[in-house]
């Protein structure tokens, strides 16, 4: 069985920065496992500005940031198209790659699997099952990678920072959102966001408003929302279900390590309930920018390097 000193699961900003820094610090037996065909993580499909290496000079678009990150990481042992299917009872990793199933072990394993938005199903949002209902992740990929326009006048659910990203993606694809809906009395993102949404994008926000159901025949035709007990129907042809990020915990949710609200339970030094398993980046459950995830990766690298001294 293949064995390495350090295996990093996830080739996004946190995982790549960690690998890079470990390499700089002299640790050479480091492997990054990335299930997609290219490393870079979520920024690959955030086609707007706001990204910066190590969180500095945040003028890059997500895809450019991802390219830059990959360039920095060139020469490292990054295995793309490689999925960790599960941890075995012995603590090794069962892997899938183009050639089939294999097993790998490591002295230290770092979870850098990132985060995703909770789905419509997880939020128990009723109505019809229709095309045109999607998370930000799918929407961005359709627009920036597949160059498609899945709808013209969607409703955006959620007012976290990611909704701002959705407004940018909409503008890029010449999509005009009908409105932005949040259950909270105040926006989750700073208040100038609401002003910005209205002024810069002409998109009104509805607060204290809950999405009740999504309706239509084959495609979305309307959503029903409730504001302080009052219900109304809003015509739209799509729904972007954004925010409510949760850790990508498929690998450890069966109790492999302890978790809290889907994130691994970790100490300040990124250590999980198992001494040789660490977690870093957005899998920890605090949604950070790609650059901030890089900084976490570098910090963890320094900690691990001292253990080798």
């Amino acid at each position, binding site marked *: 069985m293949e064995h390495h000193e350090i295996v990093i699961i996830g080739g996004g900003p946190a995982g790549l920065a960690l690998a890079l820094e470990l390499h700089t610090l002299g640790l050479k037996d480091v492997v990054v496992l990335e299930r997609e065909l290219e490393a870079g993580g979520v920024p690959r499909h955030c086609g707007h500005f706001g990204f910066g290496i190590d969180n500095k000079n945040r003028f890059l678009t997500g895809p450019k940031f991802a390219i830059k990150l990959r360039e920095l990481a060139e020469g490292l042992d990054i295995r793309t198209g490689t999925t960790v299917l599960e941890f075995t009872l012995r603590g090794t990793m069962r892997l899938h790659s183009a*050639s089939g199933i294999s097993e790998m072990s490591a002295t230290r394993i770092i979870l850098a699997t990132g985060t995703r938005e909770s789905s419509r199903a*997880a939020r128990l949002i*009723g109505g019809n099952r229709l095309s045109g209902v999607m998370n930000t992740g799918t929407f961005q990929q359709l627009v920036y990678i597949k160059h498609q326009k899945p709808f013209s006048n969607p409703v955006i659910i959620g007012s976290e920072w990611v909704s701002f990203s959705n407004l940018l993606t909409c503008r890029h694809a010449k999509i005009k959102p009908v409105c932005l809906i949040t259950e909270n009395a105040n926006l989750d993102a700073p208040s100038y966001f609401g002003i910005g949404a209205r002024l810069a994008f002409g998109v009104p926000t509805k607060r204290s408003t809950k999405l009740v159901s999504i309706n239509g025949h084959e495609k979305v035709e309307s959503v029903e929302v409730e504001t302080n007990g009052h219900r109304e129907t809003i015509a739209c042809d799509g729904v972007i279900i954004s925010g409510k990020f949760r850790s990508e915990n498929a690998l450890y949710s069966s109790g492999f390590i302890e978790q809290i609200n889907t994130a691994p339970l970790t100490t300040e030094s990124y250590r999980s309930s198992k001494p040789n398993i660490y977690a870093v980046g957005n899998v920890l459950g605090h949604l950070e920018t790609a650059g901030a995830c890089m900084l976490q990766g570098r910090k963890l690298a320094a900690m691990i390097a001292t253990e080798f001294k």
Partner: protein
Amino acid sequence: MDKRFDIAVIGGGVVGLAILRRFAMSGLTCVLLEKGADILSGASKGNSALLHTGFDAPAKSLELQCMQAGYQEYFNIRQKLNLPLLETGALVIAWTQEESAALDGIVEKAHANSVSDVKRLTQTEIRIREPQISKSALGAVLVPGEHVIDPWSAPLAYAQQAIAHGAVILRNAEVTRVERANSDWRITSRSGDVLASTVINAAGLFGDKVEALAHESSFTIKPRKGQFVVFDKPAAKLARSIILPVPSEHTKGVVLFRTIFGNLAIGPTAEETEERTNPTTDSTTLEKLKSRAIEIVPALKDIDVTAIYAGLRPATERKDYIIEAHKVKNWISVAGIRSTGLTGSLGIAQHVVKLYAKHFGRLPKKLPEVIWTPVPNLAEQSIRPYMKGGEIICHCEWVTRGEIEAACQGPLPAGDLGGLKRRTRAMMGRCQGFYCGAEVTTLFEKAKHGTP
């Protein structure tokens, strides 16, 4: 000249497809007309995917007869068609004293229905078998023969085997008119006209409407909606058996069951509805289902919901299946096939072919050589394609590019995105398409239209 067939089946649900298969394998020329863009677009789309023994079916009913014949045939053919079986058994659990009192009656009824291995379990036996089940279970009946199957691969296999025996399946072929043309039926559909000597109406939720095209319908479809909540994979290990409630007068009640795809689900509700297509879910009911699941298995409180769905059962004013031959008209109605249709379908097909032979026409003496058309395995407990390599596209369900491409080709390629999901499991996992949705829809559009 319109193409002429011995048999035209209206409706491409599990029942219609099983009937088509049985006729085609009997050597008759057959066509099936399906209203939707793909097979399994109606009642067969959303069910609980259980293989029933008939232990609780009404005694001496046609439903019981078809279920037991169907159950037996499923066992006989499943290996040749590569159809999975998750041998779970079921527990009917009593949560109240009143329900406890009903348990002996359930055992007696099961024995009367020839399901002789059904027996009572004590509280201790329940705990040994199901350590995660709430301690408030008072008693149970064990039904060892109740199992979990793949609700979509099975009918797909029936469809493909029918096609291999010469049957034709027309999709987007809503029937708008039927009329007598000499001794045949002329069937007008949105995908063209066909002539057939005998019509089998297996139109499910639209059974009465199709019936009315030919003559006054003797039944009315009263759709009954069932909503379901599916929990993520770690939940599957929390219940070994299918957990059934003690049934009431009106409904079999809400069931907690594992799926062949490695999840745990709860449902269905039983709601009278006017909806015949695209049933709606509602948050309040979904919340209740989720809470009920947590009451039964408390450890579910820490497990995510991965999917929600609703299905429709084509109930009628009658309790039993309605399978009737209209003697002078070469027409067989198959209606009111509710939640037991997946189990009953193969038995229903046997029954319908017998009715045909009795009333309308002889079956060819020489049977065609049997061709088996195994379907790709989607069940979690058997070998799946990703295990041999390839590129994984859907990371939650580990669906490969090769599987998605294959499902868009062949004699019965996916007709819509839902059909592709049912054939592959892509986008059906915990992220519901967050990661792979863009790629999967693009692959589908490309296969269907040549361009994305």
